[in-house]
């Protein structure tokens, strides 16, 4: 892992304008939160997406 990281090009702060675009966020967007909740209620798989991993029965 260390080798992998060190082999990556380091992007300087002034080069991060595209990386900092709101659509580049590495998680679900706030407006999709209720969609993630619906999936967590109806599907067995949860986690690894920034969504809720417990609490609430989700049984209806």
């Amino acid at each position: 892992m260390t080798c992998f990281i060190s082999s990556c090009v380091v992007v300087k702060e002034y080069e991060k304008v595209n990386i900092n675009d709101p659509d580049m966020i590495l998680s679900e967007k706030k407006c999709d939160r209720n969609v993630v909740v619906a999936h967590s209620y109806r599907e067995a798989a949860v986690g690894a997406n920034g969504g809720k991993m417990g609490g609430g029965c989700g049984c209806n």
Partner: protein
Amino acid sequence: MNKSSIFICIPFLLLVPFLFLNAQNDQSSSNAYKKRVLETAEVDFLSSYYSQDGDNAAVTGGIGSEALTDATGTILVSIPLNDDDVLTIDAGISAYTSASSSNVNPFDGKGAADPYVASSGASRSDIWTNVSIGYSHSSDDRNDIWSVNVSIASEYDYFSAGVGGSYTKLFNEKNTEVSIKGNVFMDSWTPIYPSELRPFYGGNGVNNILFTQYSLTGNTDYNPRFIPFKTKERNSYSIGIGFSQILHKNIQAALALDFVQQEGLLSTPFQRVYFGDIDDSFIQNFHLADAVERLPDTRYKIALGGRLNWFVNAYTTVRTYYRYYFDDWGINSHTASMEIPIKIANKFTLYPSYRFYNQTAADYFRPYEKALSTDNYYTSDYDLSKYSANQFGIGLTYTDIFTKAHIWKFGLKSIDVKFYKYDRNTTFQSTILTAGFKFVMD
């Protein structure tokens, strides 16, 4: 070392390489200039309207209407307390109406009881409320972020209290990020059982007024297996490890590994099961329960997910996601999605998306009348069955970075509207319409 200990230890062992890496962290950070973590207070209003239908309701043992609608409203307030600290308050309310829940008691006297027809009973609707408060602190160089949160959620037959925390470390000139988070939810049920089963525990059984008021047909010697659950608590413990890396000035990726352990009452008390080796009893068109679902009192879940986002050009971004999930109930699952935001005008972005999901069945899943009275565990909840699902979505976002439109001291920064249609390869389908309004304080 028992299974539980192994489960808790694995995440920490996986963190060791990252801690080693952290020790070699570059010294590029400087305290010369400290930008506020959050410049000004932000308020998000989120709302959604969800609708589903299908013919495999868990409440009626794998048959019957799954019709359900749910309207949700949430307010999310982020307040900068100083340069380094942010307080977040998240409050939501959700009101649902459910045909299957209504059939916890299908004998409302208003038409023949039928699993495909909603009853007018009290269980047809409920309101879920949630409040969560979070606090985060960032170090002067913004390379260390700590956060804690507490939450409570409540509905008629369920209460949940949660506490969590996370630590995030950025290094490699903020090109690399490692995080660890943990959450504990302590939930409790107020069990509600199918109405025809209630007389069989401490009641007068088949002599109850229910069975004299209505005529039993089929097997008139109705004698279900019913013992209320002793445990009413459900606890969930989760640990998540995250890693993200900027790969190029236009590409970044993330990996997430989550471990979840649940214990306690993992069955849903009002979900019926019909045994294939028991003669069927009916009132009107309604098949009377042979039992309620029985599931193990522990469950271990592991999910490994990855994201890769690519800023193709000033007009197009590609957002991809994949997750592999498995648990000790025998479920394996794959999730893959892609969203392609397209800037169609100065302030407008279009969000077409597609998501694929599949899962194998839980070891304890049995369709209608396929469970046996000799089984230890059984459920006819099709959310635990084998299926695949496709979801198509479209959204539109309006963004005004100058926040010209105002309500009091808050300027409107963005409006998001999205619509998703979700179809399983069973009879189940759903749609959800979401809207979000983001305001920032002047």
